[in-house]
């Protein structure tokens, strides 16, 4: 019974990892690839690690596995976000089929401050907007 649970968990986890890598291979754009990586890789790795926790059934192993899962779930989206932001500021080429780019014109090119939705509309950002922001 235990073996069956381990088999099912690790199979689902490895299939998630396989789907992530197929998407990495076939998607057209950097941003789509980053999006796909940070979503499915965390779930697939979480299932694989959970199967290890069920296999060993010791407190020390379960603690380590839980710490690793929490660390991956916390940090993979942060890394993906930072990388996507750097790629966008670098003006990496977008996919031609992209219809809407919500970030277009929102970044200040010099100070890298992200304005809220006021810059694209008729409202001007306030004069001291840059001074209040922590990053200059």
């Amino acid at each position, binding site marked *: 019974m235990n073996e069956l649970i381990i088999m099912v968990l690790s199979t689902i986890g490895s299939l998630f990892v396989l789907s992530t890598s197929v998407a990495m291979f076939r998607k057209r754009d950097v941003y789509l690839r980053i999006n796909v990586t940070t979503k499915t890789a965390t779930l697939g790795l979480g299932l694989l690690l959970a199967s290890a926790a069920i*296999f060993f059934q010791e407190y020390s192993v379960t603690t380590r596995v839980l710490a690793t899962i929490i660390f991956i779930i916390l940090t993979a989206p942060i890394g993906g976000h930072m990388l996507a932001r750097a790629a966008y500021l670098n003006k990496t080429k977008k996919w031609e089929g992209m219809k809407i780019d919500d970030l277009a014109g929102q970044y200040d090119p010099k100070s890298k401050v992200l304005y809220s939705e006021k810059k694209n509309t008729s409202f001007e950002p306030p004069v001291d907007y840059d001074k209040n922001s922590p990053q200059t």
Partner: protein
Amino acid sequence: MTLVEYYQYVVIPILGISVILVFIRFLKGPSLADRVISLDMLILMAIGIVVIYSIIYDQSTFLDIAMLFALIAFLGTVAFAYYLEERRKRNE
């Protein structure tokens, strides 16, 4: 079919195919961010392979290496993202 045979005939080949696909993207990647994210993905899949081998050889010590790989993946991605931004600033 025992657990070890199942791992060696089904799960490890699935992970191997995914490693090959991501490595092709790592070699091809048109931009630098592509290579960084596929390197991150390679290290994350190495975590999965290490976990599978720790079950096959019945050694729970390997899971420490998995935690170490998670740390290295995060630090590497953040450092590469930081220097991507800084490189843009220097070019201006």
